[in-house]
């Protein structure tokens, strides 16, 4: 679906070198701190900025050879950009009808009603939630093969987020080979939606794992100095000195449960893994 090989982009004090792959039928999450390189990656994938090197292949085609027809197979949400605020939903429908051969107006109208989007109110007068819903609805209403969603749930309350995630799940269920690349600051969104996760830090991919594996096999070991000294460190990915002793990240939870029953072992979450991968020291 999407293959990025050493995508490079350099600014004054930032350098991106990113490789990732999205399989057909998969929802892949891209996580990272602010300024880690998520948006730059999205913009380079979409050809909005010129890459300094590397290769991006979308739906089997090099991004340089992507035609208008090919672009119709993508659905895009950008966190900081959308339709002009002076347009209303009726205008958007009319524009989409003329841009996408496969635009499903009936579906759009039904979802707009479900999301509570007013037809004749200017977008600039919409709430943050309404704007986010319109962006996602725009992306999913023309039978796209690949969704590229940069922070689609930013600024939303729990209920609105849930509605959007539900819409994305329904989108995926409709056709087997559809895929999504999504970035979000909210790890719970990614935990429930994504099949695999990439973590980007300082412009580099530092971590890739299936979400199921992350949630089942990753754990935090909380140990004091003596326990740390005695610990088998072959499966410790990162460690960090803390007030009580040491915090260690492992991807072999069961090994430590079986062999070190006396130490405190906490289930790994996306947030904890992110924190440890960024702040922890490699063993």
């Amino acid at each position, binding site marked *: 679906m999407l293959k990025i090989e050493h995508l490079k982009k350099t600014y004054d004090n930032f350098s991106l070198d990113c490789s990732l792959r999205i399989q057909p039928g998969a929802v892949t999450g891209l996580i990272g701190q602010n300024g880690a390189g998520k948006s730059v990656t999205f*913009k380079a994938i*979409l*050809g*909005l*900025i*010129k890459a300094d090197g590397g290769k991006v292949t979308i739906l089997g085609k090099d991004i340089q050879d992507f035609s*208008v*027809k090919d*672009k*119709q197979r*993508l659905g*895009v949400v*950008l966190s*900081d*950009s*959308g*339709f*002009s*605020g*002076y*347009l209303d939903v009726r*205008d958007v429908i*009319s*524009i*989409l*009808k*003329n*841009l*996408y051969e496969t635009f499903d107006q009936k579906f759009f109208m039904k979802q707009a009603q479900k999301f509570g989007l007013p037809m004749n109110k200017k977008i600039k007068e919409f709430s943050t939630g309404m704007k986010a819903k319109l962006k996602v609805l725009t992306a999913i209403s023309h039978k796209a093969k690949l969704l*590229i969603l940069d922070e689609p749930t930013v600024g939303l309350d729990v209920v609105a987020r849930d509605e959007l995630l539900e819409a994305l799940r329904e989108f995926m269920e409709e056709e087997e080979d559809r895929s999504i690349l999504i970035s979000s600051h909210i790890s719970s969104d990614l935990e429930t939606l994504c099949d695999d996760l990439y973590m980007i830090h300082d412009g580099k991919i530092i971590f890739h794992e299936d979400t199921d594996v992350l949630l089942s096999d990753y754990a935090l070991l909380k140990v004091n100095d003596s326990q740390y000294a005695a610990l088998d460190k072959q499966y410790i990915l990162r460690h960090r000195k803390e007030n009580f002793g040491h915090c260690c990240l492992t991807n072999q939870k069961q090994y430590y449960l079986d062999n070190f029953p006396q130490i405190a072992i906490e289930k790994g979450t996306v947030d904890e893994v992110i924190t440890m991968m960024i702040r922890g020291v490699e063993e």
Partner: protein
Amino acid sequence: MKGLLQKDFRLMVKQSKFFTTIAFITVIFAGVVENISFIISYLTFIGFMFTLSTISYDEFDNGNAFLFSLPITRRGYVVEKYGFGLLMGGSCWIFATLIAVVCGQVRRTNSINDSLAVAFMIIPVMLLLLAIILPFQLKFGGEKGRIAAIAMVGIVFIVFLGVAKITKTMHIDLSGLLNRIETMDTRMLGVAAIAVSIGVLLLSGRISVTIMEKKEF
């Protein structure tokens, strides 16, 4: 392309108050001012202004990033902007020409042929104006683009003055050349002027495509 035109027409409709005001002012001008070339130029330029304002709308709130993620190309975007400008400017030109013809007939100041001749002579000037302004608007965006375009018109004026001065010091008979042009057939002159302005407009379009292809959003 159809989608972009749809967007720009819908954005223009949102400015219907502005459009009505302009039409109202034009009718008042037509009643007061006898200079029909001013009325036609003014309204045609306002028509071009719509395409400039749609560029500002596109840029507002980083809208271009999303716009170019839609199924459009940068070249298509430029073609649409020129097309929309010509469509709006052309419509306004036809409207203004009709007003000018009617006024000329009512006041008995201009024959239909005279009014049409003036209207056609304005076309190349307007096309040249569009050809100069659009690349600047695309390169520098809203406010900066307008300032740059005005500066460019000023530069063109200074260059003409400079050429006139140089030819005078070099004893080249520029007025003789101009007199020769004046004695040429008006129709031929008009057609030649329109042809040259279309050529400049095409060149301008090419420059605009290069500008847009280099842009990052």
